[in-house]
């Protein structure tokens, strides 16, 4: 199961955070800083996308200036979650049309909505892109 999801930019500012486990405010703060330190210093070309972190793993991927990090348990399939990250970014892309960091900043509640459609309580619940997008259209028509 996913423990938390963080989207951070290269300077360490958090653009999206979603916690699926109980952490206190100070712990969250510490974790965010630690994740940024661990992930930002890695070299994409020569290192894998999986890092051992405390007794979990971080699966991350870098898209332009943003790091998408999923923190998962040790017995989970990392490759599957890597695909999950890619699916998430693809959905964001089709929804916003060529999404960039500014889109995430200004429409952050929409990003949360997409995330909630895909992942609930730490598990990936919907993997079909078309279904997610149709749901999102329904939601936006309500606004």
């Amino acid at each position, binding site marked *: 199961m996913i423990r938390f999801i963080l989207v951070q930019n290269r300077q360490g500012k958090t653009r999206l955070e979603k916690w699926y486990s109980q952490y206190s405010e100070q712990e969250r703060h510490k974790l965010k800083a630690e994740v940024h330190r661990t992930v930002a210093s890695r070299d994409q070309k020569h290192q894998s996308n999986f890092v051992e972190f405390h007794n979990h793993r971080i699966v991350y991927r870098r898209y332009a200036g943003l790091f998408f990090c999923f923190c998962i348990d040790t017995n989970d399939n990392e490759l599957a979650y890597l695909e999950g990250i890619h699916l998430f970014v693809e959905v964001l892309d089709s929804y916003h049309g060529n999404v960039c960091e500014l889109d995430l900043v200004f429409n952050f509640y929409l990003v949360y909505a997409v995330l909630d459609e895909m992942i609930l309580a730490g*598990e990936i619940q919907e993997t079909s892109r078309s279904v997610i997008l149709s749901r999102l259209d329904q939601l936006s028509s309500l*606004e």
Partner: protein
Amino acid sequence: MFEKSLTDLIQGLRANKRNEAEYIQKSLEEIQSEVQQSDMHCKSTAIDKLNYLHMLGYDTNWANFNAVEVMASPRFGEKRKGYLAAAQSFHQETDVLMLATNLIRKDLASSNAMEVSVALDGLAQVATPELATDLFDDVAAVLGHSRPFIRKRALVCLYRLVLKHPEGLHALAPQLRERLDDPDPSVVSSAVSVICELARTNPHNYLPLAPRLYQLMNSSTNNWMLIKIVKLFASLTPIEPRLAKKLHGPLSQLICSTSAMSLLYECIHTAVVGDIIGVPLPVTDNVGREIDFAELCARKLVFFYESADHNLRYVGLVTLGELQARRPELVVNQYETVLKCLDDPDLSIRMRALSVISGMATRRTLDRTVKRLMSQLILSNTIRLQPVASLPSVGSIEYGGKYNGSAADSDLMAMATDATGASLVSARGSIVQSRQLTGAGPGPADSPEYRLLVVEAIVDMCTRQSYGNLSNFEWYVAVLVDLVYTAGVDVGQLLSEKILDVTVRVRQVREFSVRLMRQMLSDRQLVGRATSGSSTAKVLCTAAYILGEYCSLLSANSEDIALLLPECFEKLDGEQQATFIQAAIKVYTNWLRDVAGYWSTEVWELVRAVTSSIISQLSDLLSARTGEGNALGGIVAVAELPLQVTSRLRHFVEITKAVSVATSNPSDNAPQLCLELHELFTAYELNPVSAAAQGKVPIPDGLDLDSPIGGPIPDTEHIMFPPPPPVSPESRPRGSQSGGGRKQRRSHKNEPFYLDGGNDAGHARSLAELPDVDDIPVVQLDLGGHGSEDAAKTRKKKKKSTKHGATKRERRNRVRTPSPPPAPVDIAGDEDMPDVSAPQPQPHSTPPAQH
């Protein structure tokens, strides 16, 4: 007043990059006023802005109540903002959650599917045990909703609730079963995920679902779901062996046919972990040949960790580690490939490769593996650069100086000359290492965790199965000494234990080991780096012990004694100093005995010279530190040497005095004393003693440990801290002392300012005698040397807590029993062992304590 929308806030933030904190403060104040307003729209915008600020790290808990208000809004958009705020910033103890219970219930029962979904989302995030209990049934009712996305959310939300409210599991399980047959594939997929998670803790409940899951596995094409199902089966197979046989077929099909890496990985992983490879049925692979399932897995795994993609390499190595634990023979032929992975720039890959390699160690491979690892350690930048604060053993001395490797380790030298960036000039006994480091970036062995692991792995590989893999013990000792120089991390304790272990147990290597130890101690640089507590100091301490213990194996040399009283003496701590002195005594007596074999006038001169120099050295040490005869007059005395050190120094002084008396006149034959002094240390051979040996010593008959040995002793404590007149004259009866009260009172005994009104067995006087001031006795302080030392001893012993609940009197009596006479031989205590107990098997023993 204009209220700012979210967009305005963000734009404002971006415009005010320089004074962000101020801007945010201002906005927070505005938001505070906005949430108080009754207009729902205004409130929800404020909450929206707060969400954003929360993401930047600001605390927003003061607006919790307002967030709940917004959650109650009839408009969907606003409601969603409220739920988002709740999901982000509420945690288990947030008290406004109670208010939300009814609210969520209403939302769950609403006819608008969107509201239901957003309520489910929010609930899944913030579930507390109370909320879970209350709302469980409501969510369960939603499971039958007409819309599939509601159903799947309800499933996952129920899983969350069950985590907080375990009794709900009974109701959940049959629902899960039903949902597996749901027409919508995403609902099925969610059901599978939930079952997978639940089965990890409690697999038995879900075993009946296995046939249905099996069906799903064969029929589905959704890779995500397949991965989950396969993972599920990994938790089920341990409890149901027949399942393994059934899975055998479909799994191998999947492995051969699938193109998805993640699915392949999951299948192999399950096959290994779930022990499906244990099933002895053959399997047909792509070309139709029949091979063993385990081999198929191994072959596919090779593909993983030989790939250029680091991700695949990493997961491949993880699974290889698992496979090795179960079927080591399949893994051994991968030695070369895994060795290559040791150089990978990624730390996690290296760590995995390291654990696999060390599992593969055998007699033949040990050599190469250790050399490879050592070269990694040596060639890294860590030793050369200025030290990080956390590496105490690496001083600020540049390492590019003399490196005293072992002369016998020609292989090490040969390997190092091959490597780039280093050139070693070998000479017998001293290797000068001048490393011109290339301008490369941080090498593989630069992180301290990795270095620690490498050192531990090397040591582990060599000592496994009581040195089963080692064929050349001298090489092993040389490796350990090299590690002392090159480790760069704090492994001194481990290394010193291992050196001691191998030297004591393996008789043949003792001579070589002693020689190396002497070399180490003569290395000025290494010794200079040792400070108390550093790992080098621990190793040097062991070296001193070994040198002292087995000095008879080497040709005796009077410089050795000087080695053992090094300049950095003051920096070591008490234990270590004591070891050094003890070793020096042994070496001295051994040298005397040796020299007595060819006595002549020159030898006599030599003996006298050496003895007098030692005497002066020792008296320097003693007088400089114990404060006696302080030459600087009036300056604050330096910290006293610990007791064990002064006592040993005095022993040494006594011995040397005796020798100088014996050699006061030149004589033709060596004095008898010189020949015999060394006998003090060679009476018995010290062998490793098992930890259980003490328990096997039978207690002699007639031994009574409980009766007091001497008469009652006047209370020494009251000499130092006379009891103040008690505040209340009431006297407590002697008999009714509870253990707790006694302990407390004992701990208060040492505080002179604690007004203890209690009475207890140790008091020489009863309370009734004390109220009158005139009756307070004036005590004569006896400050003779022995008395104060004893008082100091008893005070020291009393400060330790009594483990056996003995009364104060008995404890004092135990302290006062005559301790063994202060002879130089501290090993006397072990003498009983070889006679009384059966000889202990060596592999389980531990080396004796160093004296």
